[in-house]
């Protein structure tokens, strides 16, 4: 059993799993902080009920986010020791700062929020949720500073066979961070929004008691979600344009663009073949990729083969082409789901702004399922950006295959892979069970 392959599978599984729970925490913490603030400012009890109801579900989700987060910090050392030796300066610092600034804040104050309803004034208690929200989102910022370096190394020098930090502000100011972090935050807003919509839709369908809580939640989620989805798409476009310049191979793979084209065509459908280096069943629209990439109809976009040639010259002979089929389809699914979310959220924005919550039962049933859309987009988004960077773990500096721990045997990694997979499978069943139980129970059962 090859430790490298097993370690890669493990990293993918535990990280995607972690990122099921994190976006909801990031987006819903802010949403609940807003709801509780509205309650404090207006005294409208509906917002208190919303705070408590969505808060309960938030806690069920948060627990697994935190629990699976510990694995994340440890696994760089456990499975990727050679990466850690190479990148310690640059990756370790943001991770430590993440703990110091963000984890302490969110974990400490969440404890206060849960237990402090009777001990703090209304305003103080709402402030506490803001601290949780800020803490979680700062956490995202710092881990993305670390990840952004992997996509686009800045502020470093190669010394003593490792990457040493030379400029902390360059690391934090990495342009990649400032297209990537907003993208994750807006995706989180979208996740929280559809979570609320899916569950509220259930109650609208069942005509549950306290109907106005669910109606107000739909309205809240529609506004919150419109901002989230619209901005995730717009920002995503900016991010993609940035990546065309800084990670051209990844974007060429995203477009299954094997040959350089000028002007460049946009692919609507393709079955890329890694071995033949061409696309089967390819449907392309002329000039549109030039438009998306460079805002004109005439520019050149470099293809996979040419970039491969360039990298072989620059970095030495090797295969620099990431898995194209996966890159292409992960990217496409993410974007497609994003636009589907846009349609749904705009529909709800219109309905709720008119105060019209009388939707057909079949519509409400579909709306329940839209809860899953952001999960698909979040996962495919991360899978795209990490798969598309291969064979690099740090672009241009270190390859994934050179990063794995030398001390860990295939057997050990197999054991951990099996253990995490089994434990995580149990936890997600338990999580969904509890979520469903409390989502369905609704507001009326909660004391406030």
């Amino acid at each position, binding site marked *: 059993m090859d430790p490298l392959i097993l370690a890669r599978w493990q990293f993918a599984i535990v990280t995607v799993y972690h990122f099921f729970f994190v976006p909801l925490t990031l987006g819903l913490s802010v949403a609940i902080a807003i709801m509780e603030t509205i309650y404090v400012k207006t005294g409208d009890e509906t917002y208190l009920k919303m705070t408590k109801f969505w808060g309960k579900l938030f*806690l*069920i989700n*948060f*627990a697994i986010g*935190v*629990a699976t987060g*510990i*694995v994340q*910090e*440890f696994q*760089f*050392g*456990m499975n990727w*020791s*050679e990466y*850690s*030796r190479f*990148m*310690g*300066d*640059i990756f*370790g*610092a943001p*991770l*430590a*700062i*993440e*703990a*110091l600034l963000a*984890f*302490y804040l969110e*974990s*400490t*104050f*969440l*404890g*206060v929020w*849960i*237990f*402090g309803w*009777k*001990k*703090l004034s209304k305003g103080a208690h709402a402030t506490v949720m803001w601290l949780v929200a800020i803490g979680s989102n700062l956490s995202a910022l710092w881990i993305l500073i670390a990840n952004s370096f992997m996509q686009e190394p800045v502020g470093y020098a190669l010394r003593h066979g490792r990457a*040493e*930090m030379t400029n*902390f502000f360059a690391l934090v100011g990495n342009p990649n961070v400032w297209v990537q972090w907003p993208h994750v935050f807006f995706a989180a807003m979208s996740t929280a929004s559809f979570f609320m919509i899916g569950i509220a839709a259930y109650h609208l369908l069942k005509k549950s008691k306290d109907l106005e809580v669910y109606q107000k939640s739909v309205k809240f989620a529609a506004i919150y979600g419109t901002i989230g989805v619209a901005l995730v798409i717009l920002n995503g476009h900016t991010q993609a344009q940035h990546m065309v310049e800084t990670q051209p191979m990844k974007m060429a793979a995203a477009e299954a663009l094997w040959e350089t084209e000028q002007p460049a065509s946009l692919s609507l459908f393709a079955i890329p073949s890694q071995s033949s280096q061409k696309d089967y069943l390819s449907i392309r629209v002329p000039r549109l990729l030039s438009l998306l990439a460079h805002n004109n109809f005439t520019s050149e976009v470099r293809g996979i083969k040419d970039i491969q040639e360039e990298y072989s010259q620059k970095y030495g002979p090797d295969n620099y082409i990431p898995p194209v089929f996966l890159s292409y389809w992960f990217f496409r699914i993410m974007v497609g789901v994003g636009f589907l979310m846009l349609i749904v959220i705009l529909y709800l924005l219109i309905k709720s702004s008119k105060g019209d919550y009388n939707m057909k039962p079949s519509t409400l049933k579909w709306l329940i399922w839209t809860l899953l859309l952001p999960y698909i987009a979040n996962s495919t988004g991360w899978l795209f950006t990490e798969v598309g960077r291969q064979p690099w773990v740090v672009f241009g500096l270190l390859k994934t295959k050179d990063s794995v721990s*030398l*001390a*860990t045997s295939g057997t*050990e990694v197999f*054991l*951990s892979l099996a*253990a*995490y997979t089994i*434990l995580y499978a149990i*936890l997600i069943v*338990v999580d969904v069970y*509890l979520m469903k*139980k*409390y989502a369905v129970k609704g507001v009326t059962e909660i004391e406030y």
Partner: protein
Amino acid sequence: MDLNTVWFILIAVLFTGYFFLEGFDYGVGILLPFIAKDDLSRRVVINTIGPHWDGNEVWLLTAGGASFAAFPNWYATLFSGFYIALLLMLLALIARAVAFEYRSKDESPRWRNTWDWVIFFGSLLPAFLWGVAIANIIKGVPIDAHMTYVGGFFNLLNPYALSGGLAFVALFTLHGAIFLNLKTTNSLEEAAHKSAITWWWLALIFVVIFVVYSYFATDIFTRHGFNPGISAFIAAVALILAGVFVKAKSSGWAFVMTALTILFTVVTIFRGLYPRLMISSLNPEWNLTIYNASSSPYTLKVMTIVVAIFVPIVLAYQAWTYWIFRQRLSTKTELEY
């Protein structure tokens, strides 16, 4: 004092904070199924650490993150080398974290009892494994010329390390019993008091075994001359005084004493280890030190500034949370967990 030494001390501080705070969480979790026999009592016990356990656990994450940032080679060698031990610890911590939140969210007694045992094992394993890990670090393990651990898993379960594991478990359980004694009322307070007496004896026995064994298995006492140093002496006195205060039902002072025991034990260990981070049992030339395992001076400087600003802030607000939740819990208290 160079930055590498400063960071050695800071890592020790972070581990001290972790053991002091999570120490009583683990102790409470270990006592849970035994000290509380009915659902309501169990809920009271869990709720004593309810507001705090997550913020306490972050000390572990900060210690780990800081190790990565300041001494990446140490982080890499330790975490990849002690792989199975860390895996077991992670599984325990993950399950425990979920257990706290999920335990009372279903009414079924079987559901609740299962999660209570998850809390138990989720507290016992990390406490034990940290003792094993630290014992192995100060004893020395097979590390080759490339800073790679070459010892396998079972090598870590040597008798010396096991004695370390038992010492940590006993000390944390004592610490937890005293904490429970401070935070509960009536029958639970009484039960915690009795536990504290029992566990004080156990802690004394296992710590003495571990300390005596350390004279023979390691060089941490003898390294700086035969005198183990004032820190070891204070730790010993504190542990004894803890017992005195427990007997006298002065649980506040007893808690201070176990806190001091933990603090000065960590100080003694790190002092004996300095300037090494991991000892190679194969060849002293292959030790990891604060010089050959560290990141660049620039990174150490940046991190020092960040820590200097934020650790005091964190300490302040964490202390505040203990203050606002200082009330003792009874079976009449409204319980969130």
